[in-house]
Structure formats: structure tokens, C-alpha cells
């Protein structure tokens, strides 16, 4: 994942979870962010799919519980659709 894409990802997560993009890091997870509930999770999936034009499969969707995991899933899906 390019630094550019990673920056976009951090900003998107910050927007959805009401954080400062600078706060989004390796330890950002459902355990450390207040308000990362099932509704925020839904918004996160929808926003990721819209912004990166990907579809997050069911089995991956449940894994989106931290910034490192989200980065991994998004990178995989981007690779899957890469020409």
C-alpha cells in the first residue's frame, strides 16, 4: 500500500470514528476507541467500499477491528481488483 493510500485510509477512519487522523495508528482498535460500535462498524464498511471502490467479503468484514487489520483487508481487496 502506498503512503498516499495509507494516508487516505487514516483520514477515512478518522472521519467515521470522529478521531484526528494523527491519532489513527497501530493501536487504534475497537478496544481503544470509544464509539467504535456495531453502527460505526457498518459505516466503516460502507465508507471503505465507497472510497476505495472495493467490496469487503463477509468473512473479512468481521475482522475489521483495528487499523492494522483494516489496512490488511483493504490492501488485499485492492490487489484483487488491480489490473
Amino acid at each position, binding site marked *: 500500500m502506498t503512503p498516499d493510500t495509507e494516508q487516505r485510509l487514516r483520514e477515512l477512519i478518522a472521519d*467515521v470514528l470522529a478521531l484526528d487522523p494523527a491519532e489513527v495508528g497501530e493501536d487504534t482498535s475497537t478496544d481503544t476507541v470509544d464509539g467504535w460500535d456495531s453502527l460505526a462498524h457498518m459505516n466503516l464498511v460502507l*465508507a471503505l467500499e*465507497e472510497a476505495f471502490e472495493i467490496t469487503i467479503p463477509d468473512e473479512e468484514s468481521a475482522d475489521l477491528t483495528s487499523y492494522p487489520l483494516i489496512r490488511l483487508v483493504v490492501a488485499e481487496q485492492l490487489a484483487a481488483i488491480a489490473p
Partner: protein
Amino acid sequence: MTAVEAPALDPIAALADPGLPLAAVLRHVREAEAAPEAARLPRLRFGLSANVTADLLATFVRRHALVRGAVAEVEQGSLDAHLDNVRAFAGAGVEHLVILEVLDALGPAFEAQLPTLGPGALAEHVDRARSLLTLALGEAAGRFASVDVVAFHRLSAPAATPASAAVDAAVATFNAMLVEVAAEHPGVRVLPLGDAIAAVGHEAAVDPRFRLRFRAPYTARACDEMARRLLLATRAGGRIRHKALVLDCDGTLWGGVVGEDGPDGIALDPHTYPGNAYWAVQHQFLALQRQGVLLCLASKNEPADVDEVLGGHPAQVIRPDDVVVRKVSWDDKATSLRAIADDLGIGLDGLVFVDDSPFEIEGVRAQLPEVTTFQVPREPWAYPALAAEIAELFAAGATRVATEEDARKTEQYRVRAAARRERARHATEAEYLQSLGLEVDVRVDERAQLARIAQLTQKSNQFNLTTRRYTEADVAAAMDDPDAAVLSLHVRDRFGDHGLTGVLVARFAAPAAEVEAFLMSCRVIGRGVERACWRRLAALAAEHGCDELRAAYLPTRKNPQVARFWDGLGLARVAEDADGVRYASPLTDLDTTIPDHLTVHDS
């Protein structure tokens, strides 16, 4: 101003961009609501009671409120608990109640069940939904500024299969029930917000994953479009006040210029292009008139030419009687629009103006920014789509069981406009009132008017002493009660009939009679009509052995104009607290004098 000078830092401006991604919507809504300017914006307090997870809908309601210059606070009810939600919302100060009952969520995968559900089982579901809605709407009566129920709609994509037809049939059955229930509760509207799904496209509107997983069927795009329509239909909580549609003639009602081409030369015709575009648009505008929108004309023309088309052209759809005010002259449009607003007695922000000339549109925009303007598209084929957009602005998408009064609105405003012009001719207010030839009928327990009486108690805010809301059943109960009376006031003058415009509800418990409610329609305020009913009330009170009269003024945000009404009738203040002012006086202190300019029939 260029894009560079206006960086996208203003979150409200950014929110108006229809293509804004979800993440940005979430951020801008938060930022806009937290901005210092937001503190000055009016608050719209919504309560959303749904049988599906609709948090995202709330987010988009906040977005569209901001776009329209307000801040929405959206209370979310518990799933499937309308009655409890209604109670909680009323306690929490919610003003706009929205009930969203999604067909598919009436039972597990309800749409999938429908094709195999027998008619008996379906009827049971309909009855159950009817009971729930009736309970919730009964509880809501009189406690909210607006009550809207979203019409039933399907979530599955329509297909050419029997199963799909079964879903459509069920939608129709449930909606027939809903319209009946809404009709029993004055002021309740049925909003076809599900149409947003078709507008967005099924694929893009329904998320099958979240529908099954979290009972959250609507995508962000669907929520966005539903919220946009909701804000339009609730007129952004009163922030949208459009009442009248003002139309230019040449190039707007028809193609061509009647003064040059003659009535036979204009383009207006059901069958051939481009006349058929204007013909279609005239039907669209006339449909608005039937829903209570006031049609007016503002045209630079010879009045005789316009009259000839309006009255005599075979393909003309909007006829002279459909138009409330006609300003056909060589005055500029801003002057005509001001005069129209004046004649109608409404603000300039109540006007929507349509013209084909960019020059006229610009002139109006510059001089009267309060007026909403639309320019007729250059290509006539694009005009019906614009007319549909205009219809949306008038919240025409909302269906409500129309009363006879709605249909007569044009007539009543025409009468009032004539009266206003008349007023200009009289030197003093007294002379003017005298010239009106006002007559008031005061009737007691008028059963035939149950619906109108209940509607008036639901709708009147300004001239309303106690702002108590009555259902038809409440009114009927008061009429049946020998120790109560419902007085209704009918007003007419030499310009026409204003209809039933005042209601008084009194209870008699000797030795005291109490006025429980007294209200007047704002259509007749300022003519002394409110003095017409007290002679009759005093007589009724005496018949019931009462010699004391009690009354109250309960203040609301809307009714300060009647704060001293009882004082004016000679009643004495006996208690004042946070709720209001209580009055009590011997019946003989009540001033039952009827102003000279009124003729009252109250026997």
C-alpha cells in the same frame, strides 16, 4: 468568487454537494454542528421511531437540515416500540415525529413469507399493524408539531414473478390500512419515502448484507435521498414556507408571445411538440393548485391578450378560476411579486416564481432574494422535469387525506385578496370593517362539522388560548356530554364565505362554567369575529345554572398575540404560574358586547 478563494472549509457548503462520500458527510455534519455559527441556527427536533435500524437515516436528516439552514437533533427510538418511543419523544421535547414501519421487518424475512402466507394470516398481520399504529398515533395526538408515517414499501427488487406480485399486493393492502388510520388522526401525513429506493435504484438502495445481519436495510445513498425528501415534506420544520406559485405567461405557460403571435399562434397543444410540453406542465401546476398551492400570474402583457388565452384557448389547462391573483401589466416583476404577496397576505418567502427570461429571473433574484426562482429550460422537453422539481418543493409528495377546506383554499385566498384590495380604498379600519358586511353564525354542537372542528383544533396555533388538540372522537364526546358545549363560528362577508373559522369548547359544572378551548383560524384574525360567541356562551352557562366563568391562557411560542385576550373580555386574573394564567369572574363581568360591524346569528 473562485474555488481558490472559497476553500472547502465551510462544512455547510460542502454538505450541499450531492456526491459527497459517506466519510466526509459524517465529518462535515459533526463539524458544522459544532461550529460557532451553528448556535444561531434554528433547531429541528426530530424523533424517529422505526422497526429497522435507521441510524444512518438520522445522520442524513442532520445533513439535509444543515443544508437548509437548520440544525436537526434526531432522537432515535427503540426498535419496534412505537408507543414507548412516542411517549419518550413527547417527554424529550421532540417536535417532528416520524414513524417508519418497514414491511419486510413486520416479521422475519416478511417479504419472503408473503407469497406463502394465506389471506387469513395476512389479514391478521394487517390488523396487528393497524392496532400498533392506531395506538401510537393516538398517543401522539396533539403532542407534536408534525406527525409523519412513512408509507409501506418493498425492499426486494420488483420482478415479473408471482412472488413479486404478492409483495406488491401486500404493500397496497398495508398502505390502504395506513391511509385509513392516518385519516382518523387529524394532521397525520403519509410520506412515500420508499419512493427514494426506486429513485436511487434497488441495487444501490438496499444492502442485502446489513438487511439480514443488522436489520439495517438502507444504504447510505438511500438514506440520503429519504432524508432529503423528508426535509422537503416536513418543509424543513417550517423553514420552507412556499405557498404560492407565480407564473409568467409567454414562454412559461405557453410557447411564443401572445401579443405578437396571437392566441392562435402560441405553442400550446396536447399532441404536438413543443406545445405538448407546455400542456403537460400546465397539468402539473394545476395539480399543485388542487393540493392547496395558490396559483398566480405575473406577466408583462396586455391584460386582454392573457384573458383571451386563459378564458378562450381550447388547449389552455389553467383557467381563470384557478388563479388567485393576476398581475398582468407593464410593471417590473419585482413590483408585481410584492403586490401579489401583499394581496395574499403572505411573506415574499412564500412565493415561487417561474419565468423563461434570464433577465427577469436575475432582476427578481437581485431585488427580492427571499423569492425562490426557477428559469424555464431552453429546451421545452426538459420543462416537465423542472415542473416535477417545483412540485417537490411544495412538498406535494406528501399524501394526506384532503378535506373539503383544502380544495377551497384558492377560493378563500381569492376572497381575502379581494378584501385586502378593498381595505386600501377605505380611510379607516372602522369604515373598512363596516363595509365588509361581516356575518357570523354561532352554532352549538354541530355534528356535521366534526372533522373540520377537530382539524381546526389541531392546526390553529396563533389565535389559540389553550392549544388543546382534539380528535374527532374527543369533539364528538364533548358534543354528547350534556354538561359541555362545542360552539362553532361560521364567517362570511360580502366577498364570500370563509367557512368554519372558530371553535369554543366549554364545560359546565354549576356554579362555574369553564372555557376549555377557544381558537380562531388565522384567516379571519383582525376583524372582531372573536367577539361574536360570548353572548351565546353566557346564555348557555346561565341555562346550566352557572354564574361564574373560568378560563385560562396557556402560553406557547406561537400564541403571544392572545396573551391579554381574557383581560379584554373583562375577566380577572386569579392565578399565574409557569403553565399560564387562570381567570375567574362573575358571569356578569363578561363583556358580551358585539361590535357594530358584525351581524351575529346565535339563536
